C-alpha cells in the first residue's frame, strides 16, 4: 500500500485525443507512455519518481486493458535488465528509477543493453535527485549516458515539453537503435500544468505475443567478437543516426534573435530558471520572448557539433548553463570550438559555481555577470547602478536551528535505536554501518548511531572488513526494503559465506517505507498482484544463517536492548541477525485510524491511547528526548519563577506507540510519563465500576486534603478550579 493513492488521478490517464490533462509532471509522463504505445513498464521507486511507480501500480487495470505489462522490479538493475525485451522485439519499454543512485545499481544492465542495441524503443526515466531536498550524494547521471552511449534527454520543465519528449524519445531510440534516458529533475516531477492529450495506443506487439514467437540473434549478444562490432556500430551508425534524427525532428530549440553577438546555451531542464533570471533583468517577457539568443539542449547527449557551431556563428561570447559537476557539456562544447578553430569565448563554470544547485540567486548573478562582459549595454539601468538603500536585516544564522528529517511520530524504528543507545551506554561505542532507508535518520541527533552508508542493501557488506571479529563485534543496520533490494545477496550471503562474526539488525517495517510505503516481499499486506508475506527470517535460514532473533514488537525496548546485548556478547560464532519487526506508523495510522473512527461511531468499544507528562514531576533534564526525538515529545516553558528549564510535554499528535513509557522504564529515566487510554463506548458495567472507583479515590483525596494545605492550582492539579 503506497503512501499516496492515485486511483482518482488514474482516470486522467484515460483521456482521449484533444482533451486537456491538468496535473503533476509524473502523471503526465505516465500518460505520455500510454500515448506512445509502450508495451511494458517497470522500475524501482525512490524520490522523485516514487509517484510514477505508484501511479503505474494504481493503473494496473488500465495497463492490462491496453496489453501493457507492469513489473515492480526488485531493484534498478532488474528494471534495466527488463529492457532486454526491446533488444530483439519491436516493443517499446520504459523503466524508471532515481538518478544517479538507481543508475549506479542499473549500470551493468544499461551498459549491456547499450552494447546490444535495441529494436523497440527503450527508455529509462531518471528522476534526477539533485539540490535542495535531495536525499542522496550530489552527483549527475550524465556520465552514465556518455560512457554507455545512451542518449540523454533533458526537456524543458513544462508538461507539453516533457510529454512530447517521451514520444520523440521513443522515436529517437528506434531511429538510432539506442536506449535513451529521459532525465526529469526533482521539481519537474512535481510541477503542475496542462497539456492536450492524444489517444492511448495499444503496443504494436505485446509482450505476450512476443513470447509466442520468440526471436534471437547472436549478433546482439555481448560476447566477443560481436561486442567489438557493437562498439563500431555505436560510433559509425547509431550515433550519426541519432544526430540526424535530433536535427530533423528539431529536438533542440532556439529562442531569441539570431544576430546578437552573444548567446546562452542551456540544459532544457534549466530553461525556466534561466528565463526567470532574464525576466528579472528585463530581457525576457512573461512568455519567454527574449532579447538574448538561446540554444536549448533538450538533448544533452549527444551534443551536435555542427548545430552548436552554427549557433556560435557571429558571436563573441557564449555562456553554458550546466548544473552540477564536472562540467561535461562545457568541456565538450569547448573542444568543438577548439577543433573548429573558433575564437568564440566560452563561459560557464568560470562564472557559475562549480558545485551546488543553480538557485534563482545564483542564476541571476551569473547571467548578469555574463552580460556585463558580453553585452553591457543591454543591462537595464537599475542593474548597472548599484542597489537602493536597504535596511540591514538581522542575521538569524545562529538563531534558526536546522531541521533535518527524522523518524515520524510513533515510528517503530525509534525504540530500536533507543535500545541501541542503551546498549552503547553499557558496552561502549561500536563500529556501525548503516544502509539506505528511514533507519539512516538514526545517524542524526539525538541517536547519532551509524557512521557510514555505502548504498542500498550494502549495510552489512560495508562491515566486510570487520567480519573476522575482534574485541567488539561490528554492527550493521539494514531495512526490509534494502534486504530485498540487494541485501539478501550482497550483504547476507556475503556474511554467511565469509563466516562473519558480525551483527546485523534488519529493521522490518513491513514496507519500503522511505520511498512511500510500497509493498516488499515480506510485507504483511494482501496484494493481489504481488507475492507478499515471505518472512525475512525464512530467507536467512535458507542461506544458512541460524542465529536469527525475530522480534515482533520493536516497542519492547527492554527486549530489544537485551537481544542486541545478547547478539554482541554471545560466544556463538557466525552471523547474528536480529529481525526487528513493527509496522511503519504512517501506514498503520492511515489504515487503522479510519477503522477506529468507524468503530467508535458504530458504538463498539475502542481504547485510544496517548501519552502525557506530569509537569510537576518532570525536572527538565530532557534525557527522554535524547533517547527519542519523537516529534510529539516536545518542551514547554512553565510559568513558574522557581523553574529555569522547560519541561517535557507531549502534544496531541501522539499516537500512543508506547516508546516514551518503555524508554522511561528501560533506561530508568523518571516517573513523569503516563499513558491515558480513553475508552470509547465502555460497557455499562465498566462505566459503573469506573465511577465507583472514582468515588472512593475522591473520598481518599478529600480526606487527605482536609488535613493539609494545598495550593490550587499547582501545576499538577490545575484542573481543580
Amino acid at each position, binding site marked *: 500500500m503506497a503512501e499516496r493513492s492515485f486511483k482518482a488521478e488514474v482516470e486522467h490517464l484515460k483521456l482521449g485525443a484533444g482533451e486537456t490533462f491538468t496535473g503533476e509532471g509524473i502523471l503526465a509522463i505516465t500518460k505520455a507512455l500510454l500515448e506512445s504505445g509502450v508495451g511494458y513498464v517497470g522500475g524501482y521507486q525512490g524520490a522523485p519518481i516514487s509517484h510514477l511507480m505508484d501511479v503505474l501500480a494504481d493503473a494496473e487495470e488500465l495497463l492490462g486493458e491496453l496489453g501493457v505489462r507492469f513489473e515492480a522490479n526488485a531493484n534498478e538493475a532488474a528494471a534495466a535488465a527488463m529492457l532486454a525485451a526491446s533488444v530483439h522485439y519491436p516493443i517499446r519499454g520504459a523503466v524508471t528509477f532515481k538518478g544517479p543512485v538507481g543508475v549506479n545499481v542499473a549500470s551493468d544492465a544499461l551498459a549491456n543493453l547499450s552494447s546490444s542495441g535495441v529494436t523497440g524503443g527503450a527508455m529509462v526515466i531518471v528522476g534526477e535527485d539533485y539540490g535542495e531536498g535531495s536525499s542522496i550524494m550530489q552527483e549527475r547521471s550524465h556520465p552514465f549516458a556518455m560512457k554507455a552511449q545512451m542518449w540523454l534527454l533533458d526537456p524543458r520543465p513544462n508538461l507539453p515539453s516533457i510529454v512530447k519528449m517521451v514520444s520523440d524519445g521513443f522515436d529517437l531510440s528506434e531511429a538510432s537503435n539506442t536506449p535513451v534516458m529521459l532525465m526529469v529533475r*526533482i521539481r519537474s516531477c512535481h510541477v503542475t500544468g496542462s497539456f492536450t492529450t492524444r489517444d492511448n495506443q495499444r503496443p504494436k506487439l505485446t509482450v505476450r505475443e512476443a513470447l509466442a514467437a520468440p526471436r534471437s540473434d547472436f549478433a546482439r549478444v555481448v560476447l566477443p567478437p560481436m561486442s567489438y562490432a557493437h562498439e563500431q556500430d555505436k560510433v559509425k551508425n547509431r550515433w550519426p543516426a541519432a544526430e540526424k534524427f535530433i536535427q530533423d525532428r528539431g529536438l533542440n530549440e532556439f529562442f531569441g534573435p539570431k544576430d546578437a553577438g552573444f548567446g546562452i546555451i542551456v540544459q532544457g531542464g534549466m530553461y525556466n530558471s534561466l528565463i526567470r533570471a532574464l525576466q*528579472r533583468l528585463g530581457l525576457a517577457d512573461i512568455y519567454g520572448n527574449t532579447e538574448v539568443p538561446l540554444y536549448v539542449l533538450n538533448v544533452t547527449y549527444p551534443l551536435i557539433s555542427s548545430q552548436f557551431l552554427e549557433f556560435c556563428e557571429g558571436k563573441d561570447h557564449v555562456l553554458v548553463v550546466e548544473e552540477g559537476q564536472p562540467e561535461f557539456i562545457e568541456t565538450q562544447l569547448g573542444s568543438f570550438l577548439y577543433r573548429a578553430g573558433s575564437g568564440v569565448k566560452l563561459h560557464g563554470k568560470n562564472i557559475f559555481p562549480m558545485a551546488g544547485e543553480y538557485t*534563482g540567486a545564483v542564476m541571476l548573478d551569473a547571467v548578469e555577470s555574463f552580460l556585463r562582459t558580453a553585452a553591457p549595454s543591454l543591462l537595464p539601468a537599475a542593474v548597472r547602478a548599484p542597489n537602493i538603500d536597504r535596511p540591514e536585516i538581522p542575521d*538569524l544564522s545562529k*538563531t534558526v536551528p536546522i531541521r533535518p528529517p527524522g523518524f515520524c511520530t510513533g515510528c517503530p524504528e525509534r525504540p530500536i535505536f533507543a535500545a541501541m543507545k542503551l546498549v552503547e551506554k553499557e558496552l561502549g561505542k561500536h563500529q556501525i554501518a548503516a544502509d539506505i532507508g528511514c533507519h539512516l535518520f538514526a545517524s542524526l541527533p539525538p541517536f547519532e548511531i551509524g557512521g557510514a552508508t555505502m548504498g542500498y542493501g550494502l549495510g552489512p557488506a560495508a562491515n566486510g572488513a570487520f567480519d573476522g571479529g575482534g574485541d567488539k563485534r561490528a554492527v550493521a543496520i539494514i531495512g526490509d526494503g534494502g534486504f530485498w533490494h540487494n541485501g539478501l545477496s550482497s550483504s547476507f550471503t556475503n556474511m554467511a559465506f565469509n563466516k562473519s562474526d558480525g551483527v546485523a539488525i534488519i529493521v522490518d517495517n513491513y514496507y519500503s517505507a522511505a520511498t512511500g510505503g510500497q509493498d516488499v516481499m515480506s510485507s504483511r499486506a494482501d496484494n493481489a498482484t504481488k507475492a507478499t508475506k515471505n518472512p525475512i527470517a525464512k530467507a536467512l535460514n535458507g542461506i544458512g544463517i541460524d542465529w536469527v532473533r525475530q522480534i515482533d514488537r520493536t516497542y519492547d525496548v527492554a527486549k530489544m536492548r537485551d537481544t542486541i546485548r545478547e547478539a554482541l556478547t554471545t560466544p556463538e560464532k557466525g552471523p547474528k541477525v536480529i529481525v526487528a519487526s513493527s509496522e511503519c506508523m504512517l501506514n498503520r495510522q492511515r489504515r487503522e485510524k479510519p477503522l477506529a473512527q468507524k468503530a467508535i461511531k458504530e458504538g463498539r468499544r475502542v481504547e485510544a491511547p496517548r501519552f502525557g507528562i*506530569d509537569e510537576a514531576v518532570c525536572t527538565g533534564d530532557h534525557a527522554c528526548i*535524547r533517547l527519542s526525538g519523537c516529534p510529539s515529545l516536545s518542551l514547554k516553558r512553565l510559568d513558574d519563577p522557581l523553574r529555569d528549564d522547560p519541561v517535557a510535554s507531549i502534544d496531541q499528535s501522539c499516537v500512543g506507540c508506547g516508546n516514551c513509557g518503555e524508554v522511561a522504564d528501560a533506561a530508568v529515566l*523518571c516517573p513523569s510519563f503516563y499513558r491515558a487510554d480513553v*475508552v470509547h463506548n465502555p460497557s455499562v458495567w465498566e462505566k459503573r465500576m469506573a465511577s465507583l472507583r472514582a468515588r472512593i479515590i475522591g473520598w481518599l483525596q478529600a480526606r487527605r486534603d482536609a488535613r493539609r494545605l494545598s495550593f490550587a492550582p499547582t501545576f499538577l492539579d490545575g484542573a481543580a478550579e
Partner: protein
Amino acid sequence: MTLHQALDPRPQDPKMGGIIKLALLAVGGQGGGVLTGWIEDLARANGYAAQATSVAGVAQRTGATVYYVEMAPAGAGTPIFSLMPAAGDVDIMITAEMMEAGRSILRGFVTPDRTTLITSTHRALAVSEKMVPGDGIASSAEVMAAAEVAARRLIAADFDALALKAGSVISASLFGALAGSEALPFPRAAFEAAIRAGGKGVEPSLRAFDVGYKAAQEGAAAPVAAAEKPKPGTARGPARLMADWQALEARAARLPGEAAAMAGAGLKKVVEFQDLAYGRAYLTRVETVLAADRAPFDLTREAAKYIANAMAYDDIIRVADQKTRAGRMARISREMGAKDRNVMQVTEFLHPRAEELVSLLPAKMGARWAANTDRMALVDRLFNKGRRLRTDSLRGFLMLHVLGGLKGWRLKTLRHAEEQAHLDRWLATAMGYLPQNYDLAVEVIRCRRLVKGYSDTHARGLSKFDRVLTAIALVKDRDDAPQWAARLREAALKDEEGKALDGAIATIRSFL
C-alpha cells in the same frame, strides 16, 4: 497581527506581466501540500494561469519543505514560470512555524520591497533545541524582530492554535490568513470555494479559515497562550493550618524587593512538599542569607529560589503524592479530550531501584545498607524492575496514596539526611565567597540548577554540580570569577556527557 510597511514597493517590471510568486515553508505533517493545492485551484478558477511545485522526498518526514506557486492572469500565451523561489523575488511568503519564518528570512525570501510575510508564531521545536539538558529553545523574539525589518508587511499570529481550536489543521487557518491579507487579487468567497471544491473536511476547514481570515484582518486579539496561564496558587486547607500559613506568608512578604515574590513561591513549594514547619525552616534559611545581604538583594532572591528547589527534592514520596492528588484525573481527561461518556485508564511507568528504596530507610540504617553491595544487589533483584501502575484502579491508587502519605516518615530517611547535608555544604560554599566576591556567591547559588532528574540523570547532575563547584574554587580569586562560574554552569547544561563543561574546565586549567 503586526502590520509593517518597511519600504515603498519596488515598481514591478511591466514585462513580468504581474506574475505573483508565493512560497510556503512548512514542516512535515502540516498540510503544506493541501494548502498549495487550494492556492493553485483558487488561481485557476479565477482566470489565472498557475504552476505549483514542491520538493517532497524525505523532507516530508519531519524536515522543512518548500512549496512554490506562481500565477499570472491568463493571456495569449503560456507564461514561463520558475520552479523555485528566488532570494529577493517572493511576493508572498507563508511560513507555518516561527523558525521557518526565520529560515525564509535567512534564505532571502523575505525582502522589504515586496514580501508579505504571513507566519504562524507557534513553535515546533527542532531536535537540537529539545535535546539540550538545559534550555536550548531558540529565540522567537529575534526572528520576530528580523521579520519586522525584512518584511514589507507582516501578519503573525498563532495560526496553529487557532486551527486546533476550530477543530482543523494549520493549512486551513493559513489559507484564511492569506485571504485576509488581501495579497492575492481574489475575494474571500473564491477562497472558500476552493476549500469546498477540495471536498475533504470542508466544514472544519472553513471554520479554521474563518478564524485565520479574521486574525489577518483584525489582528488576533488575545494571544491564545495567555488564556491558559496557571493562576497563582491560593492556599486551601483546615482553618488551624490556614492561620499559621497566613503568618508565614506575611513573613515571606516582608523580604525585600523581588526576594519576597520568589520566597512566596518557594514557600508554597516547600509547604506542599512537606508541611508548615518545613516552610518555617525554609524562611529561616532565606533570612539567614538576607542577614548577610545588601541591596538590591540579588543573593536573597536567588537563594529563595534555589533553597526551595533543594528542599523540595524529588523523592518517591513526592512523586507518589503528585500522582495521586485531587484534580489530576480531571486535568488528564481534559487534555486527552475525554468526554463524560468515556472511561479513562491511566498507567504510570515507574522503575524504582535499590538506591531509591534504600534511601527511604532511616538514615543510619539506610547508609549501612547502601554501603553493602551484596545487600543492594539483593534489593535490586527483588524490586528493580519496571512497574506499570494503573492509578485509575483502586490497587494502584492505594499503593501510591499510601506512599505519598509518608511525609511524617520522610524527615527521618537517608535521602533527607543526604539532601540536607548537600544543601548545607552548598550554602556554606556560596556564603563563604560572599565577603570577597558578592557576585560569585550569587553564581554559586545558581549552580543548584544543575541538580535535577532521577536515578542516573540525578547522579549525573550531582557530579556536574560538584565539578562546576570544584572548578569555581580554582578561579575564586580572580575578578572575573563570577563570569567564569556562569560560563561553567551554562556549559554543564549544554550536553549530556559534559563535553562543553570539560572544554570550559580545560580552558581554566590552561591559564592557571
